[in-house]
Structures are given as C-alpha cells and as structure tokens.
C-alpha cells in the first residue's frame, strides 16, 4: 500500500463524517441536503476557525483554553466600538492585532516562566472573560450597515443550500492554516517542537520565538473567530463562546491530531469541527429527546464516532505493515 500512514486518521475522519451524514439522511427527511451541509459549515465556522489556531498549539504539544473567552471579548469590543461609531472592519483589524498581542503574551509567559500552557491560558480564559464584563454586561447589537452587507454575501450551492460569508471566511482561514502548517519553516518548527522539543531545540529551532509565534497565531485565529461570531450574530455578548475552547479542542482531536503533539493535520480540523456540528444537527432533527437524552446522545454519538475512528485507523494499520 502506497498510502502514507499519516493520512490515515484524516481519511478515517472523513469516512466517518460521510457515513454519519448518510445515516442521518436515511433517517430524517431533508437531512442529506446541501442546505444542511451549508448550515453545518456556517454554524461551525467560528469553531473551526478557532480550532485551526488550536491545531497549531496542540501540534506543538501545548493547549489553548483562552479561545472561548477571546471570542466573547472580541464580540463585545466589536459591539461597543460599533456603538461608538467605529467601522466594523476597522474594529476587526484592531481586534486581530489585539488577539495576536494577547496570544504572544501568553506564549511569552509560557516559555519564559516555564509555566504550563494549560494554566497560563486558563488564566487567559478568566482574564478575557472578566474583561468582557468590564466592557459591558448587556448584549449589544452591531448596527452598522456593513453587517447587512456581510451577511448578504452568499454563494449558492446546488439544491437549496448556500455557503454563507462565515463559511467563506472559514475556508480562507483554513487555506491559510494549511499553508502555514505545511509550507513554511514555522510550520515545520511547530511539528518539530511537538514531536520532541528538546531535539528541536538542539537542531536549531528557537523554542522561545516559536512558542510566542504559535500562541500569537492561535490568538489571531481565535480573534478572527470572534470577529466572525460577532458579525454572524451581529452583536456582542459577554457570555458568548463560553466552553467553546473545549469544543475547539475536541474538533482538533477528532480531526486526528494527537494532544501529545507532533502528529496531525490542519485539514482534519475542518472535519473534526463538522462532525461536532453534524452530531448536534442529528439530535435537533430527531427532536423527540428531552434535555437528559439530548446530553446523553451527544456523548454517545461522540463515543460512537471515536470508536468508529479507532476501528478504521486500526484496521488500516494492520494492512499498512509493522505497528509502532
């Protein structure tokens, strides 16, 4: 078999996604449609964008928990600055810079103080969420007409489906992420750091700058996710995006990236995120479950997916030759 082993988890993820989609289609009317596909892409766009950033962090062996709070904070800033007369695009750019700076600061603390990423970014989570409350306690609408313009951008899909602007931004971000991960020296350094930080250092990777860059990049993507979320809901809400960091991490891991670092692909994250969306959509289409069963089926479907994924990867592995 000529197939490179590193693509296996990705392929398995895609296979499972398609399988779930088709199974859902056989169970519910209107499920297997471009409309649902378009919805999944749009409704998960910010999760996937944030998850792309998280992919880099996780590939490097770290973790970023500040994602959800960043989304909330960017949102309230967009909204409040909007009410002060800023153009949404200007705020967006400003917030992207903020995201980069905040991420870089986290990266610096992680490397310089040798504090574990989990904890530094957990403090980041608390801090940003706290700042949200400082900015406003209310949910604030963004009223600039740019928002209407933004949500009017659509690409029609065959059938009733559409690719909304959020989905388009997400696809661009995805392309950017794939490029950075696989076609730049930085991307290579990220993989090396995650694979074996000590070796990477001895081979000439500057761990400090790389760490700072990784978290800055993650900050950029989560700020972008925040911008997309704010435009998507045309508002800022101080509680927006809470616990979204776990969803993002789950998307990354379901996409085949190992939390221990060094192994995985950005493209997988797209499908990881879409699978999470698919699970939710399936449950909503069912609609007959009460709250208890909704939570349980969420967990059960997650479990089902993980097991299917493992079985697929496992069975391929046997054909693929010697196991590690």
């Amino acid at each position, binding site marked *: 078999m000529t197939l490179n082993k590193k693509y296996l988890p990705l392929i398995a993820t895609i296979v499972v996604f398609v399988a779930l989609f088709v199974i859902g289609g056989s169970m519910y009317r209107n499920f297997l449609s471009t409309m649902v596909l378009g919805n999944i892409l749009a409704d998960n766009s910010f999760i996937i964008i944030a998850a792309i950033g998280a992919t880099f962090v996780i590939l490097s062996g770290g973790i970023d928990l500040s994602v959800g709070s960043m989304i909330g904070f960017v949102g309230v800033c967009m909204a409040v600055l909007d009410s002060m007369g800023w153009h949404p695009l200007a705020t967006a750019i400003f917030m992207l810079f903020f995201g980069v700076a905040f991420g870089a600061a986290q990266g610096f603390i992680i490397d310089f103080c040798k504090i574990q990423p989990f904890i530094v970014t*957990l403090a980041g989570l608390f801090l940003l969420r*706290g700042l949200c409350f400082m900015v406003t306690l209310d949910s604030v609408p963004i009223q600039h007409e740019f928002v209407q313009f933004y949500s009017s951008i659509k690409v029609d899909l065959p059938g009733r489906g559409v690719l909304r602007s959020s989905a388009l931004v997400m696809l661009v971000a995805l392309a950017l992420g794939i490029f950075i991960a696989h076609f730049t020296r930085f991307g290579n350094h990220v993989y090396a750091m995650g694979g074996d930080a000590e070796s990477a250092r001895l081979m000439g990777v500057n761990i400090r700058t790389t760490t700072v860059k990784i978290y800055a990049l993650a900050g950029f993507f989560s700020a972008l996710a925040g911008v997309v979320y704010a435009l998507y809901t045309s508002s800022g809400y101080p509680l927006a995006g809470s616990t979204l960091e*776990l969803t993002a991490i789950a998307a990354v891991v379901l996409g085949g990236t190992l939390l221990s670092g060094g192994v995985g692909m950005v493209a997988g994250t797209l499908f990881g995120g879409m699978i999470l969306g698919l699970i939710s959509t399936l449950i909503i289409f069912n609609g007959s479950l009460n709250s208890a069963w909704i939570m349980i089926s969420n967990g059960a479907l997650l479990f089902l997916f993980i097991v299917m994924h493992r079985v697929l990867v496992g069975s391929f592995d046997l054909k693929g030759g010697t196991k590690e």
Partner: protein
Amino acid sequence: MSQIPDINMGGTTNWFAKIRHSRAIWPLMALAIILIIDAIIMPGFFEIRIVEGRLFGNVIDILYRAVPTALIALGMAIVIGSRGIDLSVGSIVAICGAVIAWRINAGDPHLLVFFYALLAGVICGMWNGMLVAGLGIQPIIATLILMVAGRGIGLLINSLYGGINPSFESELLQGMSTGSVLYIPTRLFAAAAVFFGLWLLIRRTALGLFIEAVGGNAAASALAGVNSRLITFAAYVVCGFTAAFAGVIMTADTHTSDPVSIAMFSELDAILAVVIGGASLSGGRIYLGMTVIGALVIQALTTSILISGLPPEYNLIIKALVVLFVLFLQSENARATFGLMFKRDVK
C-alpha cells in the same frame, strides 16, 4: 524541554535554606499573602466563634469550602501523575448527586446510599479508565464523553421518578457534609480520612511509583514489567472515587440533586489546584499534600472575592491575576527576573 534549575544546593544545612528550596514554600506563601490581604480589608477576618455547636469564621469557612475541591483535586493529581486528565469530574459529582436523591427518596438505608454513590463514581472512573487504557483514546477526549453525557445521566436518573431537581433529607449524609463533631465540621474529618487513605494507597503500596513511572514513560515502564494499562485504569478509578466522595458532600450540602449546575467548572479548579501544588501536566509526579494546599489557595481566593464586596464582574479578573501571580512566584525564571523576595546567592 529540560529546565536546568539554577539554585545552588551547596549549603542546605540550615533550616532556612531548606525551606527556601522546598517546593512547598511558594504555594504556602501565596496562601499567606491572600490571607494577609483579607485580614487588611476585613478586620476580624481571623476571628473564630462557636455558633450552633460548631466553629464559625472565615478561616473555618475556607477549610470547609475547600473540601470538595480538594477531594476532586486529589483524584485529579493521581490521574495527572499518570499523564492523563479527567474532565468528567463535575459530571461524576452530578451523577452521584442524582443517585443519592433517587435512592434516599426510594427509602434505602442511608449508609447504603452512601456506598451506592461511591460505587457510581467508581463505575464512572472505570468507564473513563476503560476508554483511556483499554481503547487508547486520548484522555481529554475520552473523559469529554462523560463530561458531555454525565449531567444528562443525572437528569435522567432524576426524571426516573419524575423529579425536577429533587431534594431529600438524610441525617447521615447531611451530618457528614454540614454537621460537626467536637466543634469541628465533620467534612474535615471525612476529607482527612480520604487523604490519609489515598496517601496509604499511593505511598505505602507501590501504586504511586507505578503511576509515576507510567506517567513518566509508559513504554519504558511496560518493558520494566509494569502493567501500564491496568495502572492507568486504576488512576481513573481512584479519581472517580474521590469525585464521588466530593459529590456526596456537595449534594448533601444543599440536599438537592441539581445535575445541570452542580460542580460546574470544578474540573478547572481541580486541575488548577494540582498545578499550583507543583505537579506537571505532562505527568510523572504526584504530590498529594501540595495538591491540598493548592485547593486551599483557590478557596481562599474565592472566599476573599466573595467577602471583598466587589461587584461580581470583577471575580474572574481577580482570579486570573492571582493565579498568574502564584505561578510567577513558582517560576524560577520569573522570580530571578523580577528579583522577587530573595536574591539568588552567587557563590
């Protein structure tokens, strides 16, 4: 990344130097600073009285409220030592709460219900352990499943007999949670018993060594003859047990089963406690005593925020800043740079 410690251990003969180099100093110092600030903003902070047959005061409160966090954190410390993590502890608490309300309302003997709850936690731990050790699923994701589903299971148990957040009355369980013996809150005794039991389990048997070895290098441990799967499994079971114990105390506290909101974000506090206690999330070390200190730091912080009179909007910012401060204290590099407290002596 190998971090090369720069401290000079040359003359550790006097006790002062010993304390300075002990890892316990920094969390303890953080705790002391928080308490001192409290005493400044609130005169009479350290006052302790006897009310309704038990000690009553802020310091007692911190100990009292820290018990559930500390219990969960102890289990978490063990899982983290095996290079894992358990996000499902909050859900385990919720499930135990539902089990308690259900069985007590069904009229079972209360002592038996107590064991049912612990059993439920152990089963949850076994499920997590099976996913991680048996199927080889990454711990965050494996325990995420129960985290997502667990509160639903709690709701389901509640709905078995038509209760929405049912309440219950149990002298035994409530006594254990909110009662007191010899003026001292009973839950402190319970927590001490669990702590001591865990300490025996971890340090008086070889389990601790095995967990640390598996957490440090699973492949090497397996080649050295350690049954690394079973050990990993055991770590999750222990964690399920302590979470269940915390669940009993938390549920009995309000004598209501409220699966959706009980112990929200307790996993984060528990992990934080473990890390403040000096352990690394990449596994290999278990510090039980330090974890308890970590839990006390967190609870002291929470209590101070509550009594500070600041509006709740500030809670998270203060928490973030204090956490960062504690971590800076622990970081060699940061200390050296900011010249905090002690100058390093150059020989």
